[in-house]
């Protein structure tokens, strides 16, 4: 079977969801998966990866500081040692930092943020959005190794894969750049790119003082992140990391709720591939309703508390 090496990102021993989906993508494309995992807690994370579909885990140990270039060298080394046909990582900040370097070390190109992956008789192909989703391109690569990053939420993670053999390897420690400190996000909040549900607010929220309404709805879902339009980020109401759109993050959650967002083309570029889109806007003519599956015309200040309560009630029933 074709060997696919997957870089798995982990946090305090917990593999991130997007990486498990990436293993799922590799398995669905008919590969046998060798996962590479590193950092503090890597051994705990490794233990859980068999269940998600990895057949083998290479656990890089001994590095006290993260270095993307050293990690890339280790990943490329594993690919070469195994004669793997593909290398994948999730299209997260870390995956997008490491995968292009692995590609360059192998002197092959990379397809970023792919939403499908297939293996036709040994030749991989994948789909990616161009121009913020205005076009979809299916591409292959003539490079000796197929390298790609997979878009979070686009692939299913496996639940009952099996068990994986874990082998330890010394991590390279001679990085040219090293992470010397990490300031963790407060309260372990989900990132807008990873969350299965995103609740985004726009200028229609009137001011940062009303964001508790957005946060309450996100909290009611339990698995939701909060997002924002650029107008809101530029006004300083919300941090840059929350911006969805052409010049912010591209998200594709199961459910995207746009509140007080007009639906400018640059915003749509970041969220139009969401599975289900809900819009809440007081203007029935707002362009966001053109892409929304469900809409409520009304004042966000009134609709949000009612929606939060309804979602809470429903979750309580389950």
């Amino acid at each position, binding site marked *: 079977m074709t060997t696919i090496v997957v870089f798995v990102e982990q946090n305090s021993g917990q593999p991130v969801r997007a990486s498990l989906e990436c293993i799922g993508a590799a398995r669905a494309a008919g590969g046998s998966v060798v996962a590479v995992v590193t950092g503090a807690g890597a051994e705990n994370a490794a233990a859980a990866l068999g269940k998600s579909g990895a057949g083998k885990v290479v656990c890089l140990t001994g590095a006290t500081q993260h270095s993307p270039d050293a990690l890339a060298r280790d990943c490329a080394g594993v690919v070469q040692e195994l004669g793997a046909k593909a290398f994948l990582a999730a299209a997260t900040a870390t995956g997008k930092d490491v995968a292009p370097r692995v590609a360059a070390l192998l002197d092959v190109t*990379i397809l970023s943020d792919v939403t499908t992956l297939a293996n036709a008789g040994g030749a991989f192909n994948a789909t990616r959005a161009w121009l913020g989703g205005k*076009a979809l391109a299916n591409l292959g690569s003539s490079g000796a190794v197929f390298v790609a990053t997979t878009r979070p939420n686009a692939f299913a993670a496996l639940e009952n894969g099996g068990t994986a053999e874990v082998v330890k390897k010394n991590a390279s420690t001679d990085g040219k750049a090293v992470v010397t400190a990490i300031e963790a996000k407060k309260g372990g909040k989900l990132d807008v790119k990873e969350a299965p549900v995103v609740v985004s607010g726009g200028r229609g929220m009137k001011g940062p003082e009303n964001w508790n309404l957005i946060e309450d709805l996100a909290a009611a879902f339990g698995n939701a992140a909060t997002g924002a339009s650029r107008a809101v980020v530029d006004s300083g109401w919300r941090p840059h990391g929350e911006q969805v759109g052409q010049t912010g993050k591209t998200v594709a959650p199961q459910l995207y709720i746009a509140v007080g967002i007009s639906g400018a083309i640059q915003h749509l570029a970041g969220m139009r591939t969401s599975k289900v889109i809900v819009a809440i806007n007081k203007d029935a003519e707002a362009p966001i309703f053109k892409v929304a599956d469900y809409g409520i015309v009304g004042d966000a200040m009134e609709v949000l508390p009612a929606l939060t309560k309804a979602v809470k009630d429903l979750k309580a029933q389950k």
Partner: protein
Amino acid sequence: MKIAACIKRVPTTEAQIKVGADGKSLDTTGLQYMASFYDEIAVEEAIKTKEKLTGDVTVITIGPSDASKEVREFMARGADTGLVLKDDAWHARDARSTAKALATKVKALGAQVVFCGKVATDRDNAAVGPMLATYLGWACVTDVVSLALENDKGTAKRETEHGVETVSFALPAVITVSKGLNEPRRPNLKGIMAVKAKPIPEEPCEAVANQAVVNKVEQPAPRKAGRIVGEGAAAVNALVTALRSEAGVL
């Protein structure tokens, strides 16, 4: 210090996109272009670095002759030199061939630091910066939101899903910039006049065969028409019911 900033010409946001007749490309007729959004931040950081550490800034683009327009615009903001590495098929170049050609040029220039956008808003590769650094054997920090550079080293902050990382590195380095790093200045009239007649050198871009092979390009199916479930707070129950029983997402 020799500083370089890489910029890419991309279709404007409003551009209407059509698939080419071969079904494997985009029809570029009538497209208007601009510099990719993050490249403005890259050039601004290059100019700020020059102001702080002294040196000169070269703006490089791989693109058609006409891309001298964007290069000139950045020179009006304070970049010293521009360079067009001519390739009329720049938009179809894959990340590897772009990075390799840039690496050759950056080496020839003797640059110590190169600024790139974290992603170009046409193909969304988010790959050229770290690939360029890897081909050069340099340090690289991606998605940078804060930067403190000295003559031989630097510290940068980058944003990830889980928080903010502080990264230390030695020069030479490639920095890919994210939103929030700086506020790009606008060119003033004096700057515009000063570069108006300046020649912008053009060289053929190093040919590196693409590995990315396009099988098919299509336009996404338009989203199924949605519906307004109602008005105001009274519509909430209808919405929740639809999300649960129709859409199956609740």
